């Protein structure tokens, strides 16, 4: 299998000059790709282009060989699920957050007990909430999972749990793209490493 994404000479401008410029790289379709690089290199900026939360100021991003802007943006975002650093829970129960009446299979997949379905989402611990966010992303049956430092807000135990979960999702055939500033996480978990150069 080839590449899922390709960055072609991407430039994204910030308030004072470009955040990234002249960036070209590929992301493999299979396995877990860690996006690493120094703080301020533009890692978050780059992965936000994958589901079009932002667009580059010049250059382009290809998904399966086609410019991401050629797809319907709402359909693209369901295919390419993005989970941020800090888990975002919506008002209501876990089941309501997951948008289904019987979320036990989803909960099991992310290592949460089925009994959690009726809990208010804002009462979850940060680790539980991050797993719920992963379940919410998986509910849409995406082809790609983009994770922006998914463990940075977690303590060591929940961090290891989420890491194992992410590895298993990649092994199940999802394309997983994970931003990390932690070289250990990149070398231990990732099948591929995409190094974003600093300036």
């Amino acid at each position, binding site marked *: 299998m080839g590449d899922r994404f390709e960055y072609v000479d991407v430039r994204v401008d910030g308030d004072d000059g470009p*955040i990234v410029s002249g960036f070209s790289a590929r992301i493999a379709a299979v396995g877990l790709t860690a996006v690493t690089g120094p703080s*301020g290199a533009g890692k*978050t900026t780059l992965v936000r282009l994958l589901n079009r*939360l932002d667009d580059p100021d010049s250059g382009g991003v290809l998904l399966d060989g086609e410019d991401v802007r050629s797809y319907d*943006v*709402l359909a693209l*975002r*369901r295919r390419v699920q993005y989970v941020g650093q800090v888990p975002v829970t919506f008002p209501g129960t876990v089941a309501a957050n997951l948008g289904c009446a019987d979320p036990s299979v989803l909960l099991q997949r992310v290592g949460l007990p089925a009994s959690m379905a009726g809990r208010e989402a804002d009462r979850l611990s940060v680790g539980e909430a991050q797993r719920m966010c992963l379940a919410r992303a998986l509910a849409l049956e995406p082809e790609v999972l983009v994770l922006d430092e998914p463990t940075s807000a977690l303590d060591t135990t929940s961090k290891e749990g989420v890491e194992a979960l992410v590895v298993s999702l990649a092994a199940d055939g999802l394309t997983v793209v994970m931003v990390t500033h932690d070289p250990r996480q990149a070398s231990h978990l990732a099948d591929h490493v995409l190094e974003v150069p600093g300036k």
Partner: protein
Amino acid sequence: MTDLSGAIGYKDVALAVALVAVGAAVSRVRRLDLEGDMLIATVRSFVQLLAIGYVLAFVFDGHGGMSAALLAVMTVVAALTAGGRAKRVPGARVVAGIALASATLATLGVLTALGIVPVDARTIVPLGSMVLSNAMASAALVMTGLRDDLAAHRREVEARLSLGHTSHQASLPWHRRALRTGMLPIVDNTKVVGLVALPGAMTGMILAGAEPLEAIRLQLVVMYMILGGNAFASVVAGELTVRRLFTADHQLVRSLRRTPR
């Protein structure tokens, strides 16, 4: 019956300035440092109201066709004021202008189409200005509230967008809250009218010698008109603000999302 219609001369206005002098004296004694502002406010109110008095006299005196032009000027001033207060919304003045113009046209249109008030400069201009001045505050509240809420809840908004929600769906909780913020003051005012305050149009008519019940019927029309005008302006301002804060591709505009790198 005694009434004040035609009874107030410029001499009386000058005497009423004595009350401002009392305020200025208090400011001086208590060192509030407001005497200068009071002087400016007194002079400005005199000049502005006298000027609009001559304009109204001209329009009412056989130049009714100028009513639309007068209301248009008022709308522009109101739009600049509301837009200036909500200036962090991109294109705020245009958003406010469209909201205020459509609210004024809609409410005056309903009032005249139903035959509640005659199509006449003497009714259209004052009623239009009341709709405008109230809707101006509502539109500014909706625009600033929505913009600041979406900026503060950027993560939640983008989490919703990431799940495939449209910009309208993703902003809905804060859109709803902004509309409530914009409309609650007038709803509350309408609830307590007559209990807490005797409103301006009614007191004015009573002072000018009208029967209280006649004045009250007019005031009711005015209140409902203002309520409707505020609701209309809020809805239009909210809708247009959402469109200005998201791109056509359901992305938050960059001014709202300074992201960590």
